[in-house]
């Protein structure tokens, strides 16, 4: 197997394939025309709640609905 095969530039910079793929997808979504762009961005929204746990019990949960980060 070629262990010194040319790696893609993003792998050489420390980025994983998933990060690269998600960045590409986000860039394509940002170039869409209007009704499609709104649909695409709303489809990719994430809502999640986070709570820290101490002594085996969860503390108060915070709800976050950030737009997807890379």
């Amino acid at each position, binding site marked *: 197997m070629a262990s010194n095969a040319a790696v*893609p530039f993003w792998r050489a910079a420390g*980025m994983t394939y998933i990060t690269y793929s998600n960045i590409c997808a986000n*860039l394509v979504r940002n*170039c869409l025309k209007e009704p499609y762009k709104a649909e*695409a961005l709303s*489809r990719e929204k994430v809502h999640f709640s986070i709570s820290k746990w101490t002594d085996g019990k969860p503390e108060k949960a915070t709800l976050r609905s950030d737009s997807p980060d890379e």
Partner: protein
Amino acid sequence: MLRQASRLLARPPRLAARARPFSTDLPAADQTADATFTEAWNKVIPNIDPPKTPLSFMQPRPPTPSSIPSKLTVNFVLPYASALATKEVDMVIVPATTGQMGVLPGHVATIAELKPGVLSVHEGNEVTKYFVSSGFVFIHANSFADIIAVEAVPLDQLDANLVQKGLAEFTLKLSSATTDLEKAEAQIGIDVHSALNSALTG
């Protein structure tokens, strides 16, 4: 006792000889039931029926026909939708990292990584084009092609002005980038936007 030992020692080599390299070489019937699991189950629990395994719910992969089929069967899937499901087409041209690759029925089994570019599906006289952000294509020996992409849009949903703006913005970012990661991100931006540009103009 010694006679038994030689029989037991003789068994493992037969199992090793049965290992086959490609799943499409197996006859279709073998793949419908999980034979080794049911045998092992029946040895230990003969009274209860063995449970069904995921393998019995899946449709067996169609075997590789001996002559090249006339149509290519394409499955084009995205995380949120299935754009084409077992559609029979004449040819697809996929934007692989090694260049535009044309896939005809009877193509050699290949796995290719896709780069941002145009995927075109040719069926009779009509051609449907999609811009694919990235993904993979798995071409199987039996003329089935599975194309998986994270984002794929028909070309008429793209806005040329936004593409130009994006290209200019990332060219600027590349010149002002300091860390390797920033340079990589800017380079990705440039690659994607130039591919979008050539898709819209070409």
